[in-house]
Structures are given as structure tokens and as C-alpha cells.
């Protein structure tokens, strides 16, 4: 354990991180946002998911510094009378959850398929990659919309509210796995014929072991680089789906659904319902993207063309 820490301390990764102010700042903001999100029940002034705490008579209060604003609601309230600060924190938590969950799923499927396609090759490879091509040729948003429509129906109404988060994870996860599959396959094909794999094969290790123990670790850097970008993409996808009304149910608004509900009110002057969640969403995605940029430059300078 200590040795790992030592190795990390003297690594190029840490070295370049400490020299890059943007990366450090982004990292700090990201950590802050993630902690806030995870500790939502502790830090947010109200619990927006507890309907009994919401009073309709507080609806559409402007931020506290405006004339009609109330001290109790720093950034104002939405049309149901929910505190914006609390709702945004809970929304952020949802974004984190769905973003990470969806990317984990994408990565699992993608890595599995990528490994198999790359290592076995031949007909299996052709079939799997064709599948990936086909799915990639359909914009992910459309795929997500279709899957979302199917799932909404497959599960009853009462359970939809509880199931929305896992469903969105599955929907967004299923729609972008080919990104991983392609990258992994490419690096597997690259590694497959290297001497150490040959050697392993000669010793008589079985395929699965070679794949998991020897080839997979060598693809980790590219997985890491893709993952940061993909988390940002997944967060945006969730926001887009919720914006179209296909994502989180109205009683558990995410940042995207808040922006949507605020859009109706933007002409009438209640700009805060859209603008604040919008800013939070952009900051969150921005710091992930900035870190992703940095990581890509450091770990794998060649990759930056694709994304």
C-alpha cells in the first residue's frame, strides 16, 4: 500500500497535475461539487423530495436579494414552492449518480465486447463491430429516447418514480457502449501479437486469463481517458432526456427537468428557475471536461483527435 502511494507521489501524473493550475482548480471544484452532492441530505437546507415540506404558497419566490425574495430561500423557489438551492443540490446528486452509473455500465459492456471482439477476432469480431457500427450510426440521443419510451411502459406507474434512476442509468449506459468497445478492441488487437502475450500463450494459460490478467491492464489508460469525457456526456444526456420530459419524474427533478420547467417561466420574469440550474450544470460538466482534457494530454497524447 505504502509502495503504491510512493509510486504515485513520484509519478508523472501527479507532477504534471501540480504544474497545471487549471487542472488543480477544476479538480477542487469537482471534489467540492461531488461532496456537496453526496452529502445532499446534510448540506441542503430542505429536502425537496419530501413533499410534506413543500408549500405551494411559497411558489415562484425570487432569490433572496430581490425585493419579493425571502431569507428562507437563498436562490428563490420554483413553481411548486421548492427551495432552489436544495433542489439543485439534489439534482446535482442525481447527475453524479446517473453519470457515474451509466458510464460504469457502458464501460462494463464495452470492455467485455471489446475484449472478446479483439481477442477472438474473425466472424465474432465482425459481427460485434458491425453491431457497434450500427448503434453508433444512430445518434445516441435517439437510441436513448426509444429505450426510454419502452422502459416507461414496461414498468408500471407507481414504480416508475422509484425506478427512474436505475432506468436512466441503463438507458444511457446501453446507448454509448460502442465507444468503449471500439477503443478496447483497437488496443487489444495492438497488444495481442506482442511478445508477452505470445509468451503467456506458450506457457499454456487459458484465454480468459490472458485477456483479464494481461491484456486488460494495458488498456486501462485509454479507458480512464474516455471515461471522464463519457461522464460529462452522460450527465448531458440525462439533462437532455429530462428536458424532453423523458427523464426524471416531476416529483424528483434533476437539473435538466428544472431547466425545462423554468423555460415556461422565463418570459414571465422568473428567470432563476432556469438560470441557476443551468449554471450549475455547465460548471459541473465544464470541470469534468477540463480534467478530461488534461488527463488526455498527459496520459495519451495521441487520443485527443477522436473526441
Amino acid at each position, binding site marked *: 500500500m505504502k509502495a503504491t502511494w510512493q509510486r504515485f507521489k513520484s509519478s508523472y501524473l501527479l507532477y504534471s497535475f501540480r504544474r497545471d493550475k487549471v487542472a488543480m482548480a477544476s479538480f477542487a471544484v469537482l471534489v467540492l461539487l461531488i461532496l456537496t452532492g453526496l452529502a445532499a441530505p446534510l448540506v441542503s437546507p430542505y429536502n425537496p423530495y*419530501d*413533499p*410534506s*415540506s*413543500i*408549500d*405551494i*404558497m411559497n*411558489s*415562484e419566490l425570487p432569490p433572496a436579494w430581490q425585493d419579493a425574495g425571502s431569507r428562507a430561500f437563498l436562490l428563490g423557489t420554483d*413553481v*411548486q*414552492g421548492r427551495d432552489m438551492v436544495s433542489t439543485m443540490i439534489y439534482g446535482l446528486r442525481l447527475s453524479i449518480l446517473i453519470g457515474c452509473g451509466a458510464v460504469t455500465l457502458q464501460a462494463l459492456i464495452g470492455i467485455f465486447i471489446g475484449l472478446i471482439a479483439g481477442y477472438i477476432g474473425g466472424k465474432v469480431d465482425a459481427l460485434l463491430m458491425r453491431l457497434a457500427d450500427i448503434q453508433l450510426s444512430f445518434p445516441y440521443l435517439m437510441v436513448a429516447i426509444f429505450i426510454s419510451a419502452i422502459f416507461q411502459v414496461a414498468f*408500471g*406507474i*407507481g*414504480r*416508475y*418514480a*422509484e425506478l427512474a434512476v436505475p432506468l436512466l442509468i441503463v438507458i444511457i449506459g446501453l446507448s454509448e457502449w460502442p465507444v468503449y468497445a471500439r477503443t478496447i478492441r483497437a488496443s487489444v488487437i495492438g497488444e495481442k501479437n506482442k511478445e508477452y502475450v505470445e509468451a503467456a500463450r506458450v506457457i499454456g494459460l487459458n484465454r480468459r486469463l490472458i485477456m483479464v490478467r494481461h491484456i486488460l491492464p494495458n488498456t486501462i489508460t485509454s479507458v480512464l481517458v474516455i471515461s471522464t469525457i463519457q461522464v460529462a456526456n452522460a450527465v448531458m444526456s440525462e439533462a437532455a432526456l429530462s428536458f424532453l*420530459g423523458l427523464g426524471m*419524474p*416531476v*416529483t424528483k427533478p434533476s437539473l435538466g427537468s428544472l431547466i425545462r420547467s423554468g*423555460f*415556461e*417561466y*422565463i*418570459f*414571465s*420574469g*422568473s428567470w432563476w428557475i432556469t438560470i441557476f440550474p443551468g449554471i450549475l450544470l455547465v460548471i459541473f460538466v465544464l470541470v469534468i471536461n477540463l480534467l478530461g482534457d488534461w488527463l488526455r494530454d498527459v496520459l495519451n497524447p495521441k487520443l485527443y483527435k477522436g473526441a
Partner: protein
Amino acid sequence: MKKMMIVLLSVLLIAAFGSLAGAKTLKVGLDADPVSLDPHVQLSGGMLQLSHWVFDPLVRWTQKMTFEPRLATKWKRIDDLTMRFYLRKGVKFHSGNPFTAKDVKFTVERLKKSVDFKGLFEPFAGVKIIDDHTVDITTKKPYALLLNMATYIFPMDSKFYSGKDKNGQPKDAIVKIGPSFALNHESGTGPFKVTYREQGVKTVFERFAGYWDKKSPGNVTKMILTPIKEDATRVAALLSGDVDFISPVPPQDFMRIKRDANVNLFTYPGGRIITVQMNEKRRKEFRDVRVRQAIVYAINNAGIVKTIMKGTATVAGQQSPPGYAGHNPACKPRYDLKKARALMKAAGLEKGFTCTMIAPNNRYVNDEKIAQAVVSMLAKINIKVNLKTMPKAQYWDEFDAQVADMQMIGWHSDTEDSGNFSEFLVMCPNKKTGYGQYNSGNYCNPEVDKLTLAAQSETNLKKRAAMLKKIEKILYDDAAFIPFHWQNHSYGARKNLMVKPIINTMNFPYFGDLVIK
């Protein structure tokens, strides 16, 4: 190519500015456009609006809820079953054909064939032609609301709609899905002819030169109807001058429209009651009248009207809006959280329970937001509600299947009479008779059934009103459903439009009579 473009552009310029002298163009932005030009293809507010622009009824409602002679100049009861209508002479259809008794008979018969209208016209036996300008309309049983129903008879040009179209389909065919002659062709007697129509994009109406009503003050020569679905966009279009008239106006934008110097806001009390039904078959809790009452007491419907509806609705405690025969002033809206909690305690449910609820999200004004407010209000008496909202196209199937414990429904009486509410919403559901078709609460009270049926054929109006009022009181005491409010209709228009005289409680703006200054 360049030449062609110049020609095109100049044609456009002429089209845009050429209509200056005396011509008044009205640009209307509604949330949806009529689904067809065939008035009998769908029974909906939008189609009836169109009917008033392009066709003309025998009689129509005034703002005071009296009957105004249109194509019928006079009428009189001959016996319990028959009413005689004297038709206006010298009226011409858009096709040039003269309007006669034959057209009325044709229209009523077509109504009875229409899937959407045949239910409403079930009490009707038929039309007898006395002479070219006199008809007798008969019903199967004594029917108090015959004249109310005559507002639905918009005579169609029987000659124009006879024969076969180029696909070999009869021209009078009512086709729900697919092409039909009446879908794209019209010949009515109304103030406007349809000159261009691209569904979902634009409909253009032009004033009919041979319109019979020379006394109508209306001076609109051309009307362009554009559907603008998104509320915020519709308002923006009015404020920027892209359109002259919009409806509905989303409540959240009322202040903005009032503040603007160039536009006016008009609202008119409507008759559509918004309710939520509590399914007694699905939930034993709802069978306890105390629980139902507790829920009604817990709902701050006055608060909803004030905040979500921005005051643009009338808080309700019953089905019948003020002015209806059945409106019972004793049934006041009730909101009392303490009492609600006490009732829950008395029912032994102070810990509450969990239930499900569905509501549409594009059917009624702010329906989704109202439903959400219900969730937080019921949470205060420990009832946890799992809410799902969906577009109306998906909603009604779920509603019929009664998939949730609580379901939202709004109702506007077809006959502008109280009985219609009870027949559809609270009578014991009966597949055979069709009563209680939209009673997803399965509230069933034989006394209510008896009174409602008796009121149908009671021709003594005083007695009838007493019966209808009694029904409201029973429903009120039983807390048969959760009443919210009666929606107001709302219109936004540029200052030079004299909108006030042409709007009414049915939400049929009579554009034919609109004056543009």
C-alpha cells in the same frame, strides 16, 4: 433563375402588403389547429371552434347563456317530443348552393352516423321536412335539452357532400384516419371560407362574400391560424407582433401581458371542472367517507388557484359552475388541514398510507403542476402519493384501465347543464347504459343515479334544478371526488381587436363578428 426569384419575391411582397386598403388580416395563434375540416370527425373544443367560423349552427349561445337565432330564425315546441324550427331564407353555402331544410336533415343524419356525436344525438328520433324552410326535429323521449343540442347542428351543404370523390369514396364519408373528401373540402354557411390548409402548420380563412349575416359587425377579411404548441413561445409571438390573437394564455404570463402597452388580456369564466377521483375499488381506504373527506379538506385548492393558476380560475366545491341549474351555493370549497388530520385520525389512519396517482400533462391548464401540488398537500396528512404524468394520448388508456388509485379528470358539460357531469363522472359505472363511463373512482350511490335519471326527463325546470342541487349536496357530503376549480378561458390580443363581445363561456370565439379597429 434570378428572374424567377425576383418574380417570386415580388409576388410575396404583393401578398404581404397588397392587402392594405380596407382589408383586415387577423393572425391567430392557438395551442393546436383543427384536426380536419369535417366538423363531424371529432367532438372537441377545437373542432367546434372551427365549426363556428366556417359553418353556422341553427342556434348559438350568447354570453348571457341565452339562445341566439342563427340559421333557425324561430322555433316552437309542438308537443313533448317535437320542436319546429323555421329556417332562415336566402342563405347560401360557400359553394353557392342555397340552404334548405334538406341540408338540416342531411346534417342530423350525418351526426347520428358520426362515432363522436352519435352518443349526444342518441335521444333524437329524426328530422321531418315540412317545407323548404321548416323542419320538425323529434326525440324518442321527452327531452329537456333539445335546444341546447341544436347548438351542435351546423348544417352542411348536402349537395356539395353528395356523390363520390376521385378515389371512389362517398363524399359524405366520415373517415377517422385516412383521406376523405370532407377532410380537405368544406362548404358551410359560415363567415369564413378555408382557402389554404397545411395541417399542423397553417390554415388560411377568407371572408365569404355571400355571408348571410349582413348585420354582423365583423370586418376581418382574412384570418391566418397557426398552431403554436409551446406556451412560452405563443406568448412571445403575441408580444413581438407575429400574431394578433392567442389562446390559451398560460397563467404565468398574465402579468406580462397586462403590463405590455400593445396587448390586452381577456379572461372568461369557463365551465370545465377539474377533479381527481379516488378509486374505491382499488383502495379500501377510500371507501371510508372520512378518508375521502380528509383528502378534500387537505387540498388547498384556493392556494392552487392563487399560485399555479395565478387567479385565473374559480375555486370549486362541486361539479356545477355558478349559473348552472344544479349549482348549489351551500357546497363551498373547504380547506382545513387540522380537520383533515382529525378525520384521518378518526379513521385510524393517522400514520397514512401510500397510493398512486396519474394525471395528464398536456390536457388541462397546468394539469401537471396541479397534480404535483396534490402530492405535497396529501403528504401533510401522511398520504404518500406516487405520481406519474403523461401526454393525453397515453393518458386515457391508463385512465380507462384504472391503473392508479387516484386519477385526474376535467369535464365540461356538453349540454351546458349539470346533469351531464353526473352522468359521466359519478353515476355507478355501467357498461350497458354507458353511464359512469369516466367514473374511475367507482363511487356508486343509487340515490345519485336515481336523481340524475329523473332529472333527464323532468321538464319542470324548477323541480329539475332542485333535484340537481340535491345531487351536488350528496356528492359534497360524501366527498365523492376532489374538486379543484373551473378553468377560465384566456385570450391575449393586440389592442385594436375588439375581443370582449365575441368570447363566451364555451370558449368559442366568434371571429366572424370580430371588429378590428
